[in-house]
Structures are given as C-alpha cells and as structure tokens.
C-alpha cells in the first residue's frame, strides 16, 4: 500500500472527491494540496459517518434498520501527520420513519492505513426519537469501528430530549449491530423531577431493556412530576 504522502501545511479546503485511498501518484498529491477551493463537493468516500450518526443514537432510540438516505458534507479535508482530517463533517438524512436527523462534528480523523476506524471530535447530533421528540446528543469524542460496527464514546456524553429528559454519561460504548449500549462509569438520567443515578448502565435490544447497576438510586419528586406533567408537558428544566 503506498505510503501516505506528507502534504506540507495541510491547509483545508482541499477538494477531495475520490475514495480515501488517496495516496495515488505523487503528482496527484501535489495537485490536491495545491488546489485551494472553498466549495467542497460531496465526499464519495463512504466515510462511515452515516453509521456513526446511527450509532450516536442511543440503543433506546435506534430504529434504523434500513439504511436511510444520507448526505455527507465537509468543509474541507486535509492530510496532516499522515491522517485524513476532515473539518466540520456534517451528515444529515432521514430515518426509516422519514424523520430528519443531522450530525456534525468538529473534526473527523481517519488513518488511511486503518480505514476501519474514524475518530470523531466534538460530536453534536440531533436525532429524532419520535415526530415531536428530538434527542440532542453532545459527545466530546468518539471512536467508530466500521468492522465491529461499534462506537466508543470515550468522554462525556450528554443527551437532552425535547420532552425534557437529560442523560449524562462519562462514557458510553455502543454496539450498533446488536442495538446495545453499555457504560461502566456513572450515569445520571433525569426527567420531570425524577432522577436515576448509578455507577454503570447498559441498554439491550435497542433500549427495550435498560439495566442500571452499582449503587442505583432513584429520586422521585411527585410534586414536581405532577407539575411537569400537567404543566407544559415536560418543558420544565430537569434538575
């Protein structure tokens, strides 16, 4: 496999329109690096962003069996230190039930020598749970493994849904193949005045079963729950 060509400067805005195995001939590399175009055409490379978006949907909310329609855009990609770094990858599409979803990240980094893995930094996703309930997911960092079809969110993950649920996790490991999610670090889930905390959590079977373990604690504040339920229907800020 040709050794990836070191491009100097690694400026952004390089138009990339071929599969990630870019390291073609030396001339092309110079050509890519030299060309400077703001407009970025769709990446043909099926960077597994699509799968990453699906993965960021927690098991409980995944419902994407058939591959949805996907649009992949990026503000620019460049080679730096031998890795393909894509700025502001954006991904949007529609789920099986035709609900729009979108996901962006500050950067996606992929080592051409190991294309099965994409590192995503600054993940921000809007994922519909139902027509009127959208989950906003913020994850600091995620490693997506294409073969394993897994996404390892190694740092803080915060999920906020429009019906007022807030889930805070220190990390989360998602296995999209089996629709399972696991976190071996403290989690906190709150909604309308009730809160569940525990030191580990796992979600099986696309969220049909959620298991909390190690120091499980549930605090229910009936007064606030009633207020929230007959108030604006969960609009109250969770604690």
């Amino acid at each position, binding site marked *: 496999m040709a050794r990836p060509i070191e491009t100097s400067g690694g400026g952004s805005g390089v138009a990339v329109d071929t599969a990630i195995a870019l390291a073609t001939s030396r001339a092309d590399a110079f050509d890519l690096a030299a060309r400077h175009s703001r407009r970025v055409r769709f990446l043909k490379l099926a960077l597994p962003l699509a799968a990453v978006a699906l993965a960021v949907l927690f098991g409980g909310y995944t419902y994407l069996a058939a591959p949805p329609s996907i649009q992949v855009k990026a503000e620019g990609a460049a080679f730096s230190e031998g890795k393909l770094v894509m700025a502001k990858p954006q991904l949007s599409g529609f789920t099986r039930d035709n609900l729009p979803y979108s996901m962006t990240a500050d950067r996606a980094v992929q080592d051409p020598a190991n294309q099965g893995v994409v590192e995503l930094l600054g993940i921000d996703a809007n994922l519909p749970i139902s027509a009127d309930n959208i989950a906003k997911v913020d994850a600091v960092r995620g490693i997506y493994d294409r073969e394993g079809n897994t996404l390892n969110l190694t740092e803080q993950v915060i999920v906020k849904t429009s019906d007022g649920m807030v889930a805070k996790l220190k990390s989360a490991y998602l296995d999209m193949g089996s629709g399972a999610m696991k976190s071996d670090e403290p989690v906190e889930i709150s909604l309308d005045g009730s809160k569940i905390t525990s030191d580990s959590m796992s979600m099986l079977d696309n969220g049909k079963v959620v298991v909390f373990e190690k120091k499980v604690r549930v605090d229910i504040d009936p007064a606030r*729950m009633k207020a929230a339920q007959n108030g604006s229907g969960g609009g109250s800020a969770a604690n």
Partner: protein
Amino acid sequence: QDSQSRLSGLKLSGDQPIQIESDKLEVRESENLAIFTGNVSVTQGPTVMKSGKMTVYYAKDGGSAATGSANIDRLEVDDKVYVKSDKQVATGDRGTFDMKTEVLVMSGKEVVLSEGDNVLVGCKLTVQMKTGLAQVDGCNKGTKGNGRVMMSITPGSQKK
C-alpha cells in the same frame, strides 16, 4: 379472627419525595415495569421499606419507565419485607402495594406487626395507607395455623 390497630405512621403521602436505592435496577420499557433487586430500600418521609426485591408496575398511559416518571400502578415486594414508620414496624415474606387504592398487603408464614412492645403475629397484614388502619389476619387452618392472631400486649405500655 383478626384484629385491627391504627398504624398512623404508615402513611404514604402523595407528594413527599420518594427515594429508592438498590444494587440493581432493570427497566423493561415494553413491559412497563422496573425491577429493583439487591438491598432494596424505599424511603418517603418517616416511612422506610426494605426488601430483597421490588417490582414496580407502571400504568400504561404516560411517562416513561426508564426514568421512573411514569405513574406507578402497583409495587410488588419480595424476598423478605420490612416496613418501618414512626413507631410501627411490620415484617413479612412478601408485600404488594396498590397505588390507586393505597392498600398495602403483607403476607408470609409469619407476618409481624409491632408497635413498641405490642406485637401482632398472623399470616396477612392489610394496611389502608390513607388512614393507617391496619388489620392482621390469622393463618387459616389450611396452613396448620389455628386461624387466630397472636397478640401480646405488654402491660404498662398502654400508659405511655
């Protein structure tokens, strides 16, 4: 025959915060239930309930079992039950608590209801949580019990 006593303390008031702790909690969203297992303890105000296992059945209509915000239909408590409130303590093998009727029923080989030194022993304790009215039923003949409730009142304890 049964005997009644007022369990004033054993009231679950609707809007006081409830705190549940356990080793494990399994939420089965599609079956609308949540199962707490391992050192389960439920606290609301002065009332504390402890048991090995508690299953919470959610009403089908609203909220989500995953975050405990759905309204609860009933609780089933197994693996030894201990309920303490102010002055009364009740113990048994199992218990069910119906949130709509607010009736707690504890049953087992030996259900004990005690208040200070007064002790009632039978096979079934029914408590109307709204009023605190508690009724202990003896073990029926079938289980070689004599159907009578054993009651021991310690003289002098009434004068407290």
